[in-house]
């Protein structure tokens, strides 16, 4: 019953899971920061931060599930966390990540500004994933400044 998908790492290739394989392997998919397709909230439990990543639209959930893998999240937070677990909540169009060892001891011991992991959520939203070109156009971010 558990959808704990530690193992489902889906490799390191950024183009591993596009929806309709067209025969143009050379053209890289556009990349999109998670902030444009998801929102998130984080909290703590001891030295573990959790990040709930929620699709902004229900139709983005499968993309998140496919691309925001344990392996990629672990790489994103390299040097900041000691381990990553992922749980799926299709009913909320959400993924829950546990980021172990993220809080420098956590609770009252931690010296960090973000000792309770409150903004690890937005740190995850910095991550870029490959998205279908149509989606990239649809969510096209406003140019920064």
């Amino acid at each position: 019953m558990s959808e704990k998908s530690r193992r489902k790492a889906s490799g390191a290739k950024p183009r591993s899971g596009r929806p309709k394989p067209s025969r143009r392997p050379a053209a890289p998919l556009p990349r999109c920061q998670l902030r444009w397709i998801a929102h998130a909230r984080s909290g703590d439990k001891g030295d573990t931060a959790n990040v709930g990543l929620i699709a902004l639209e229900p139709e983005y959930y499968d993309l998140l599930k496919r691309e925001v893998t344990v392996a990629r999240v672990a790489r994103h937070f390299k040097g900041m966390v000691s381990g990553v677990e992922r749980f799926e909540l299709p009913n909320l169009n959400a993924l829950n990540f546990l980021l172990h060892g993220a809080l420098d001891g956590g609770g009252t011991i931690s010296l960090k500004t973000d000792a309770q992991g409150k903004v690890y959520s937005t740190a995850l939203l910095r991550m870029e994933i490959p998205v279908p070109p149509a989606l990239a156009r649809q969510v096209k971010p406003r140019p920064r400044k």
Partner: protein
Amino acid sequence: MAVKDARGGTSGRVVRVAGGQGFWGDWLEAPVRQVRGGPVDYLMMDYLAEVTMSIMQKQKSRDPKAGYARDFVPLMERILPDIVEKGIKVTSNAGGVNPRGCAEAVLEVARRLGLAGKLKVGLVTGDDLLDRLDGLIASGHPLSNMETGRPLADIRDQVLSANAYLGMGPIVTALEGGADVVITGRVTDTGLTLGPIFHEFGWPTEDWDKVAAGTVAGHIIECGAQCSGGNLLKDWRSVKGLGNPGFPIVEASPDGSFVVTKHPGTGGVVSVASVSEQLVYEMGDPHAYITPDGVADFTSIQLKQAGRDRVRVSGIRGGPRTPMLKVSVAYFYGYKAVGTLVYSWPDAYDKARAADRILRERLKDLGLDFEQILTEYVGASATHGALSGPPDPEAPEIQLRVGVRARERAPVERFTREIAPLVLTGPPSVTGFAGGRPAVEEVVAYWPALIDRNQVEPGVKVEILET
């Protein structure tokens, strides 16, 4: 009150539980507006974070009448006339490590307000295990740390407080006994919501789906406005009226479903997004959200917008409670201090880094022994670390933030005297030290453990106190 359900029929009475405080220090106007802004049946107020009990224990050791959330009493003074007039009941774990002292203070206020004979206070005790620790350890209950596996005996002489998390049971008992205000120690935040709903509907406490539903309701409102527009990331600019944030209200139905809403005319928003963000807050394994009352499966929750600022929550499944209760132990760990200075453009980041190198050299020369020294650059990378990218050379200012921690007080004390000297002996264009020397803080750490519920539950007591 009868409301239309989705099929157009009436689903009978609803029980309205309002969230009034999400933590000790939350907005003081919220409970007042909750009881005056529209109909509610219950007001629940959660005061206890993980280490709050140890702060209260310390206060109690200095003054035997202290040891509870003190602002609860003046707050009750403001709302007691309203709740008596309207028949609203209150559940709160404001009692901390001295629920009796808290209950007596509330009774005294009630008498002063002329409410003698009109108010009953339910007092729940039995969560406090501090005086029983040696006996428990000796009789084979090691209270091992759930994260590290170490037995409590390792830190026994540093323990400041130890409390088992109780569930809804004693709250239901107190309400059955006619209590208008139920004051507890370490009862779970979810129990404060489950108790009223189970009492009103007379549900058996072993109806696990209902337990799970009430648990989810409690989890949604336990952080106050954090489910109704506060701290909401999705479209945050579109959240209006947070000058008067509407705190959440659960309208529970007899079928176990409920609606999350807020009073009309208040700010914020109750939407699928606002509730979803709160649901994932502090989440572990969503299949098993464990409380003393049962285990809720968060992957079964269905959310639906059911009107403006109304979200219907249904479909929740759960499983039986476990034989264990969680115990929250707080123990003395050591000391820490954090010093900050602000460096300005040009080269703000480089100046801050240079200051850090100088400070560390001085600490080293002094031979101070720290368990950890942590440097952060606020405005460059303090919260997102390396993910922040290279620092902006044009940044108008950067705050240098250095924290130290040690088992002994002396090195931390000495550190606090090394920040200000940097102003005249370090890199230029520095400011922001008006606050003076940083304070040395005692570090009280949290030790989560489990205990057989049979060791605790027989000692749980419910008393009904009359004004």
